[in-house]
């Protein structure tokens, strides 16, 4: 490993991680666990900051339909989450409130139920070990008495869970810095130059040099990737969230669009819109989110909503993550996804060792951005 001095402070770094959100922080924390000296460049609050607006699910069920390595990869993170959360607690004294009691996906029609069963059965056939149950209304009500009459059934898997995503981000920042990671706040990476045996990142505030660079800049990856021969064609996908006053615990399982947090608030979400870089909320989408929540849990019509927000998911053209090392400039990596919570354990415990020279995890070759180039060629050929 070549060690270089950063131009602005003289600090040594083996790896520069561009991006201090959940993805960059998890990778940086994992790199520090591997013994690397790491500098993280984190943008200011003018950035889009998906890590401060997400829903907090550690979600597996249904993911990877049509691309089963994504199901395997997500699950490999979920199974590592308990040890990951324990390590964060030990090193940061922050309990991220991980709970993995399994999750429910409610169905409101026979068609939905049939579609759900088909999806999960296909995943089970491809993965083998993929526990799930299809439940009728009575089964669901036995486990969640508060569901409404519109719920005719549900799928349940013990694989799902949730965390407090804000505590997760704080725990990662605390734990990585306790391991010596240098966090440069309010720094925006403007460009990257491959230099000799490493890279120089030009930022708004200074320049930084290291042998390796990891692009974990969310939507910023699109512009940064070409500097080092990578491709990250990510685009924003807006999600809106409502959060309620704190109420006594009543919902002990996460669901895709309603969950009760560790501190008692109820979050409603799961909207998806392609509206560019507009991260404002809209009344009609929030009304629909609230209606769907109340349809599942009629008593929630009595809960007071106290805040709402929108955030931009980091979406690739097929919705799956991108993991790549540059062929033109080895040592430059891109790590980008829209499930920074679910995948945090895999990013810390599996992606970081790969960046430090271990073999690429078996699931990851599928997620090279080369798949988008192939898709383009295929389209053009027809």
């Amino acid at each position: 490993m070549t060690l270089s001095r950063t131009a602005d402070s003289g600090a040594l770094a083996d790896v520069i991680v561009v991006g201090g959100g959940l993805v960059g922080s998890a990778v940086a924390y994992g790199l520090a666990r591997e013994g690397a000296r790491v500098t993280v460049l984190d943008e200011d609050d003018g950035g889009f900051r998906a890590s401060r607006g997400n829903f907090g699910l550690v979600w597996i069920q249904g993911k990877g339909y049509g691309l089963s390595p994504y199901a395997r990869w997500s699950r490999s993170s979920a199974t590592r989450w308990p040890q990951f959360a324990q390590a964060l607690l030990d090193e940061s004294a922050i309990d991220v409130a991980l709970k993995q009691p399994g999750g429910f996906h409610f169905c409101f029609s026979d068609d939905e139920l049939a579609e759900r069963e088909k999806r999960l059965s296909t995943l089970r056939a491809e993965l083998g070990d993929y526990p799930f149950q299809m439940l009728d209304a009575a089964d669901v009500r036995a486990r969640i008495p508060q569901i409404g009459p519109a719920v005719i059934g549900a799928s349940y898997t013990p694989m799902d869970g949730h965390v407090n995503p804000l505590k997760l981000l704080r725990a990662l920042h605390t734990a990585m810095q306790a391991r010596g990671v240098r966090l440069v706040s309010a720094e925006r990476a403007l460009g990257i130059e491959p230099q000799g045996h490493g890279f120089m990142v030009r930022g708004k505030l200074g320049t930084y040099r290291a042998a390796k660079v990891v692009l974990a800049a969310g939507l910023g990856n699109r512009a940064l990737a070409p500097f080092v021969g990578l491709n990250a064609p990510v685009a924003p996908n807006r999600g809106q969230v409502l959060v309620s006053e704190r109420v006594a615990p009543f919902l002990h399982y996460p669901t895709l669009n309603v969950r009760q947090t560790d501190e008692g608030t109820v979050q409603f979400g799961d909207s998806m819109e392609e509206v560019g870089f507009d991260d404002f909320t809209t009344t009609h989408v929030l009304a629909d989110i609230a209606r769907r929540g109340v349809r599942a849990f009629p008593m929630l019509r009595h809960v007071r909503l106290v805040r709402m927000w929108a955030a931009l998911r980091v979406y690739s053209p097929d919705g799956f993550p991108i993991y790549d090392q540059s062929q033109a400039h080895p040592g430059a990596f891109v790590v980008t996804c829209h499930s920074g919570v679910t995948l945090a354990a895999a990013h810390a415990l599996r992606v970081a060792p790969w960046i430090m020279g271990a073999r690429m995890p078996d699931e990851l070759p599928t997620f090279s951005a080369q798949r988008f180039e192939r898709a383009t060629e295929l389209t053009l050929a027809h």
Partner: protein
Amino acid sequence: MLIEPDMTIRSTDTPAHTLFKPLPGAQGASAANVAIWFNDRPLSVPGGRSVAAALLAAGIARFRATPVSGAPRAPFCMMGACFECLVEIDGVPSRQACMVEVKAGMRIRSQEGARDLPPTNLADALQENVHGR
């Protein structure tokens, strides 16, 4: 905003000890007192203002206990944003005391932790989002 931590609840005939003094000429400064109940104790509080302002003026310092740690809390922002002033008003839990105008006869209770869902009193629940406005 400073609030004495161990302020006890005063009955109507006890002069309230409070750090809060209405400004001369402020809205409601000349309003007559109204009789209310706080945690089953009768209180005479200045009218023409929010429940939060009235309770503070009467020396009430502990409005609620947080759901997470049980820590005592009192109003902070006085403008509807912080949710620190939650109390139960006439059987309706977790109301923002700073957003509801005080009325004679109100029965107010400190909000002890998180409210329950569904509400125990569905008739009163209908008022919940009115906030007196």
